[in-house]
């Protein structure tokens, strides 16, 4: 692991933090200003999570923390002591794709690829949210089980921007995976 935190001038306070990423322990000593996204990308060299805005506006940095999707650019790494973090690298590999990754390939649910890890992490976690009965802005009946409609998928993925405009294909990929899960 590279550790480019050695300061050459002045005093740079650091804090220890330990969490697991894709099942592997990570023990880091970080400048407390380091976001979870930069801890992953710059310190652990897990560059699958992308920085599109660093402001929580684009969704490219979406990862799962304890099973819930979050924007890793809006979290400081030191906030996540003991957390179980799953990134795109933890879902599958080029030789062994996760079903959602395979569906994105099959439906061409991407173009440049930069928003793609965030779209996939968001999609995987979003289907769990529907299973858990968590409503969204477009859920009509808050007391009934959430229906897995295209409107629900579109609403719940609207925090993940894709400037290449692969939305129509992404929804087809997610719908296929959701259908298979039953």
């Amino acid at each position, binding site marked *: 692991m590279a550790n480019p935190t050695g300061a050459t001038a002045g005093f740079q306070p650091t804090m220890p933090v330990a969490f697991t990423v894709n099942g592997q322990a990570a023990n880091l000593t970080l400048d407390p200003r380091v976001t979870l996204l930069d801890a992953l990308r710059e310190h652990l060299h897990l560059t699958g999570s992308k920085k599109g*805005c660093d402001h929580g506006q684009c969704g490219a940095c979406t990862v799962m923390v304890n099973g819930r999707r979050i924007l890793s650019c809006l979290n400081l790494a030191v906030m996540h002591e003991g957390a179980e973090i799953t990134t795109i690298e933890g*879902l599958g590999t080029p030789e062994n794709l996760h079903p959602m990754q395979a569906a994105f390939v099959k439906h061409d649910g991407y173009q440049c690829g930069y928003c793609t890890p965030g779209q996939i992490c968001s999609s995987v976690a979003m289907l769990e949210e529907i299973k858990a009965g968590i409503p969204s802005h477009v859920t009509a009946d808050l007391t009934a089980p959430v229906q897995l409609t295209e409107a629900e998928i579109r609403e719940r993925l609207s925090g993940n921007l894709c400037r290449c405009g692969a939305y129509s294909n992404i929804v087809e990929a997610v719908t296929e995976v959701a259908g298979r899960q039953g």
Partner: protein
Amino acid sequence: MKFDTPAGTNPIDQLKVVGRATDRIDGKYKTTGTAPYAYERHDVAPNQAYGFVLGAGIPKGRVRTMHLQAAKAAPGVLAIVTTLDMPRMERGKMNAAYLFGGSEVQHYHQAIAVVVAETFEQARDAAALIRVDYDTEPGKFDLAAEAPNAPPVPGDSEEGSGGPPEERIGDFEGAFASAPVKLDARYTTSDESHAAMEPHATIAAWQGDKLTLWTSNQMIAWGKGSIAKIFGLKPENVRLDSPYVGGGFGSKLFIRADAVLAALGAKAAGRPVKVTLTRPLIANNTTHRPATIQRIRIGATQDGRITAIAHESTSGNLPDGDPETAVSQTQLLYAGANRLTSLRLAHLDLPEGNAMRAPGEAPGMMALEVAMDEMAEKLGLDPIEFRIRNDTQVDPENHERRFSQRDLIGCLRLGAERFGWSKRQAPGQVRDGRWLVGMGVAAGFRNNLLMKSAARVRLNREGVVTVETDMTDIGTGTYTIIAQTAAEMMGVPLEKVVVRLGDSDLPASAGSGGQWGANNSTAGVYAACVKLREAVAQKLGINSADAAFADGQVRAGNRSLALADAARDGELVAEDAIEYGDLGKRYQQSTFAGHFVEVGVDAYTAEVRVRRMLAVCAAGRILNPKSARSQVIGAMTMAVGSALTEKLEVDKRRGFFVNHDLAGYEVPVHADIPHQEVIFLDETDPISSPMKAKGVGELGICGVGGAIGNAVYNATGVRVRDYPITLDKLLTKLPETA
């Protein structure tokens, strides 16, 4: 290979691999986060430091003093390079704005310093400690105010549209005055930001006089030339590497401040430096699509034949900048004996306007295709019928020059049938609950450009074919269509092809821009493969003219030899380029579409929702229908933004784009986009290249905004000529609701 006569039958016509809907070969990397983008390449150079860019806080004037003491003393700081440290640097030849050096500020957020530190956080913090004293000068920021005095200028988008300051055929004024039916309307389009998901980013490393940039760039050969010019380096001492580009749309055609400041920072710090433009810098530091003010006049006979057509456009830019070539398509799209097009350019002190996806046509057709709709209504004609009556198979300005292929009518007729156009009613007649529902149509039009493109192909003893070219894949699907081309030519399965892209040490390609990438880059690979086939045949001792390459075998007569055998004594390498004769001049090469849109407009709030979209495209051979379709739906999506939400808001007092991030600048999201349909007409264009293909990536955006505007009119009876069509422009004009 010189391409100067129309293509005959060639191995691509087998269509065993080319032309088939194919999953992207880079898909498994992109979906697993293992495709490396510029800022992520920890492995290419050791000990990378972080550069953070400071942008100017004024739109025009001079940097008087920069107070650096606090920043220099901040933890981790290795070097600070400011714009006052050097005279103004050269710029790339296609840019108006200077990127760095000297005291003059041309536009807001122009880069004025880079702080290099051990970590990103330290560099960011130190940059915030720099205090700057400016001498601010008054500037011009209001296009509408400057437009009346804007002089006529020639235009060239560098992407295939342009023209003289004024082009006249026949007697426009006379014909328009005497036309029995006429339209004279003004349209405006907004400043737009490319907003690619990957911010501009570069890692720079020096080895003596040699500079390597791992960067995110669409046009590697242009970038190499620009870096050599900016830094006064020999081109052979510059290397760019850009295997994955996280979206460009024109914003990464050029070298930008990230590359220049990474190189300057690396020099100053004495080690590799990585720089990304932060999201809030991108709208004002880089380029944008300029706003336009357009006037369109159309005169026609009672039976709907255009006799006079004029399209005039005014846009703004920095000194040395170009106009947005919004009138270009009007020279070619419809018949009519008397014609006028003109471009005017106002001097503005806003950031540089430059190419964004379909520069010229995208905003131009948002106006022209609404004007056609308005004219059809005046004539009492269906808007499709009006377009069909004014179709032309020749260049309207030069009747000797035919279109190589033109099936706009086929696109419109098939689209009408598939979309259910016959169900369209008069404006304001269709209601679905709270929604006013309407349909709109527009023509799509974008030229096909021919550019030299080179490639190298290798065959090894395992029978693996490796293609090498500096071509880029910016999401366009280049990796896959190049692999398909090589597989078809060499008779191997796709899995036996390796594609290496984006490295300036590889043969120079056409690059990615102006929807010219697919046809030209694959034609270059075709040319190299023809040479490799000859080398293989010679090695195997057979006549290359008789040889058939299929299933990993080379067959001639009753002989069949393994392709890999040709490399048994060592790798075979062939390199060539496609170069074009005058077919592009003798024929007008263009692509066509029929764009159909259905919208719902909330009868109470005037919120516009796109309900259905269809594009029918005629664009020559489609090399990979899967990725080509994605190009088209992506362009349709961007058009929804242009038509309904996207606008860089100008602060006319402070001189900058205010909404310079992805919260304030509203690109379409999942919830804005319905299922989209694309149909490709089954075409080949043997005049375009040996591939018989043309571009589609920009065709998909051209006209769609107009179709949306027309659908809104059909839904509501309210004609909005000022994009984006936000609800405030509709609300007070909507029909009374129950």
